[in-house]
């Protein structure tokens, strides 16, 4: 009889896992349980969908075959509890399922600060397809939205709202946007580019209070007293791994569900991957490590040998508001800086060296060769032989190195 695999959570991590499993001969009986009515869609594209740049069908991650590869697919279903000893779980419609292997792919939630006005209409997050569908239904023209958080998610949300027609502002606590991935000048380039599409930014600012009447939001107050009128407030101030289910079941957790390099949790029959997981001290919010986790975990589940999951300094690669962004390593840790500025076309590239090694790369507006830079950073390669070509990518550097050898 086939081994029973239950995957809790039907987000992107589960989708990657199913993709990987479909490549392997595993013989597993798979049950996929997701809370949302939709399963396995590309969350990264929600802002594009909101902005009207993509259709819902564009968000599908799995082929029809892959989507039907689980023997059971339970959407709109929450798992209430897991019994590790009995290897069973209980859903919110009181069904008990038994498992041989269980995967926690429960994702994360948006961290919303407590500003004491719960229940006020107009305060939202932008996390799910349902969130987008809701915003698609409300009239946007002439309405004002404020996004709190100028990181990756905040900017995505702001871009989506702006595209939807909201008069959108971003309130960001730090002096420049995407401060985790960019440097000050890169952040400024990004701000300028996004401002060109009508977005407004309030940097080094935070929300001190809300103004509402009749249960409806109509303004926010910044810490310096400035008041921004708004009908919609979207929080994008970071995510928190959803690990309550695992923790309550007795699986070891800290910020997330603790896993080892093979994605095993503290329970021998349970695994975790994606945003809910934690390895060492690190949690995962980017696509690249989650995809890597899926490769490792699929081989574990299929009983095949495979490499362990290794922590890396994954580059951040994305497109915000049409602006390509790439960030790898840490430019702050460099002691020499190579900078290319092309303000006219919104391009900013910053490479940082420490000794003979590349240690950080920030690319705004033109992320060509980002992967190569990430590789150089990862390999701690000696770049002194082609330093003058480094900024201009692999082909130029290689040719320069060769011509220097030939000359």
């Amino acid at each position: 009889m086939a081994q029973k695999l239950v995957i809790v959570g039907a987000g992107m991590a589960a989708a990657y896992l199913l993709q990987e499993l479909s490549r392997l001969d595993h013989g597993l009986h798979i049950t996929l349980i997701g809370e949302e009515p939709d399963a396995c869609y590309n969350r990264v594209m929600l802002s594009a969908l909101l902005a009207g740049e993509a259709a819902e069908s564009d968000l599908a991650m799995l082929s029809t075959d892959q989507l039907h590869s689980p023997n059971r697919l339970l959407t709109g279903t929450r798992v209430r509890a897991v019994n590790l000893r009995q290897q069973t779980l209980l859903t919110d419609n009181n069904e008990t399922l038994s498992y041989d292997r269980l995967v926690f792919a429960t994702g994360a939630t948006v961290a919303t600060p407590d500003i004491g006005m719960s229940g006020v209409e107009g305060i939202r997050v932008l996390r799910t397809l349902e969130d987008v569908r809701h915003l698609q239904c409300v009239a946007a023209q002439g309405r004002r939205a404020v996004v709190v958080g100028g990181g990756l998610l905040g900017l995505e949300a702001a871009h989506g709202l702006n595209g939807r027609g909201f008069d959108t502002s971003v309130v960001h606590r730090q002096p420049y946007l995407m401060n985790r991935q960019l440097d000050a000048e890169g952040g400024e380039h990004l701000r300028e580019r996004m401002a060109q599409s009508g977005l407004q930014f309030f940097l080094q600012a935070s929300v001190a209070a809300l103004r509402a009447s009749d249960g409806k939001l109509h303004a926010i107050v910044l810490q310096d007293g400035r008041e921004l009128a708004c009908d919609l407030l979207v929080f994008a101030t970071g995510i928190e791994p959803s690990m309550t289910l695992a923790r309550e079941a007795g699986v070891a957790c800290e910020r997330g569900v603790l896993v080892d390099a093979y994605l095993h949790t503290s329970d021998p029959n349970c695994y975790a991957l994606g945003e809910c997981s934690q390895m060492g001290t690190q949690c995962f919010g980017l696509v690249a490590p989650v995809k890597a986790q899926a490769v490792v975990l699929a081989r574990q589940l299929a009983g095949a040998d495979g490499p362990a999951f290794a922590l890396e300094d994954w580059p951040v690669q994305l497109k915000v508001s049409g602006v390509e962004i790439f960030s790898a390593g840490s430019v702050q840790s460099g002691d020499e800086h190579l900078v290319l500025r092309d303000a006219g076309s919104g391009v900013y590239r910053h490479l940082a060296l420490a000794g003979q090694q590349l240690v950080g790369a920030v690319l705004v507006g033109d992320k060509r060769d980002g992967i190569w830079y990430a590789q150089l950073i990862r390999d701690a390669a000696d770049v002194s032989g082609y330093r003058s070509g480094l900024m201009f990518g692999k082909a130029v550097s290689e040719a320069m190195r060769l011509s220097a050898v030939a000359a």
Partner: protein
Amino acid sequence: MTSCRTTCPYCGVGCGVTAEINDATVIAVTGDRQHPANAGRLCVKGSTLAETLTTEGRLQHPLVRGERVTWNSALDSVAQKLQAVRRQYGPGAIAFYLSGQLLTEDYYVANKLMKGFLGSANVDTNSRLCMSAAVAAYQRAFGADYVPCSYADLEMSELVVMVGSNAAWTHPVLYQRMVASRKANPAKKIVVIDPRRTETSEAADLHLQIAPGSDAYLFVGLLHYLLGSGNLDTRYIEEHTRGFADALAVAREIDLARVASMTGLETQQIEQFYRLFGTTEKVVTLYSQGINQSASGTDKCNAITNCHLATGRLGRVGMGPFSITGQPNAMGGREVGGLANQLAAHMGFDEADVARVESFWQAPDMAREPGLKAVDMFRAVEAGDIKFLWIMATNPAVSMPDTEQVRRALQNCEFVVLSDCVEDTDTAAYADVLLPAMGWGEKDGTVTNSERCISRQRSLVPATGEARPDWWIVTQVAQRLGFGKAFDYRHPSQIFSEHASLSGYENEGRRDFDISALAGLSEAEYEQLEPTYWPCPSGNPVAEPIAAGRFFTASGLANFIAVQPALPTFDEDAERLLTLNSGRLRDQWHTMTRTGRVPKLMRHRDFFSVSISAEDAMARGLAEGELVHAQACSSSVTALIRIEDTVPRGQVFSPIHWSNQHANRACINGLIPAVTDPVSGQPQLKFSRVSLSPVPVSGWGLLLTRHLPVLPAAAYWSRVVASGGYLTLFAVAASAQLQEVQRDLVNHLQPFATRNIDYQDPGSGDFRNVGLAHGQLVYACYLNADRRRLPDGDWLTAQLAVAPLEDTLPLVAGFNPGSPVSGRLICTCWEVGERAIAQAVKAGARSVECLGEELRCGTQCGSCIPELKRMLLAAAS
């Protein structure tokens, strides 16, 4: 489309050119197959003539102290000032400084006005700098400035001795004729005498790399040898010459050992040359600036002529002492009397000649004494003795020796008039009045080449702006001075006809220069005039005048000159000084006022540099491409260093072409003292002693701009014209910060562009800026502490033509991995670079023909063939 036959305006070979004209534009030029000088060949400079016919940089309107005025007003002010100076200070206070670029008709009119109507013989010409020693030597030996050889003689000879000539670069078509004739006659030998290894010496059977300036020892020693070897033609000496005993008396002192010690040559080598000369009947000795530009240039020329007289080897086919000129109409200038010590039509200042010309011209105020020669003329200008100076078609602020003195003179001169076809010359900066003259392709007249062949330079296109013929300008001034009747020319044919008449006037075979057969040509006949050799006296059959051994001296005999050889001396000599030698580059002409506008011609040698040997470089701690100060005569130039094994130890070679228009400190003639030959007055431009010292720099910049750039204060800059813009290399002094220079430059450049890209890597001193507008490159500037890390100039300039520029990253990188870098341009005609050739050689090409088939290099003008051979040779060894 029409085609028109004309003559090339560059060197003294005087090649015929066929121009294809469409819609008043010369669209192509090819060699004229019917012209006897070149029979269809053309060198790279000639081939690119069409590209020099641009309005860019042309002087288009008369200017008086920078203000545009009408012709009338400009001519009035010239005439009034001339008259006022002459009235107040006398005829000695006025002077004309002319040029071998003028047509014979222009020359004739200027000379006539000055020497016949203004009473001054202060008419000299830049030919003084070029071959006045050869003129003086011919006059001393033959009693006339008679060149007793033709190009055919070079082909028919069994031995060509080239002295002080890099004809492969300076007279390429003639050089190719010699090489071709040797190919047809394997017994033929070519000997080259030059301190430097050149493209010419590479192809020689024997290269005598003599000590600079020691040529006279070699030829006086040759006379000594000929006596001992029994190769003298004693009968010829007795019947047709005089002075042999005196010449021999000196020569007896100069034995082989003496020659060897003075020239630095091995006795074996010297003997090999002497034996060749002694035993070969058909010998042409071809000499040029390397002989002429010397403080004893006339003696050197006579030392050569002595050897031909002693062996009776002149006046017959395939032999003679042959001076080749540098300019297209140096000979024409000599014919009309353009030198201060000549009167007109090969007549001098003896009473009979003056009276004859006076009566012919019906001249009211004849000059009766020779005037001041170039160097003395500019000294008199500085001293204030000459107060009115009219310069035509030349650039003495660059081409004269001791250019600082010349500039001081021009600065101090009360009134300087400059007629020229270009506006931005160093000399123009000092002119009170600038008069726009027609340039090549516009003007109409005749020129005479080195073998006494008169050819038509025809008008191909309309004048640029208000440009006028030089003869017209002079005539207009003459009319304003009240000489309307004697200067009522309406067409150059009338001037030519008068000139031809004068040559035959009371001649009767006494004077060598007689072209009276051409007097009275109608305008139509003049228009159709085919290349014509002189002498061509009216009525008489044309015969080689000296074939019968009869010369133009009073006695009818040729003169030996007792030449006492001497080495050049220098005032402040010191061990550490290097000997400066200067010369021409393959693709450049004079001060680059024309060739400097043709991008193709700037790719063989781009930036101003001087060359030294590896040993001298090492001794001074200099490496290839570094910056150096060369100093002498309280003047200096700043140049890149080229290390070349062609330059002997102890010497520096510098090209002569650079002026302030193309580099910041590159006037090499400033380093040359105005030492002149006492006989001819020709300055010793081929010799100076200079000190070299490295110039520390904090970095280098390469700047490409669409428009003429304004540069920051630089220790060095040198600029070339590129297709669609300018490419400038500059160096930042060690005392200045690269980053600050970059900031200044960028502040200046940014307003020209709508998109400015900036790249900085301060750690390695890398600063790059690129500006674009409308998707096209406007400027690109690269600074680096290391010059080798600047981008390739050829690749970079090619980016000017790219539109729209899709990807700017390679541009800022200054490097495109997809495009092969061509390297130095070897074949200018087909634009084949060094690297393509090297690759072809590596892939198995073993001959020039092979390379030609594969890459087309060397298949058009052939100027690059010596370099191709050298590359093949280097690869083989």
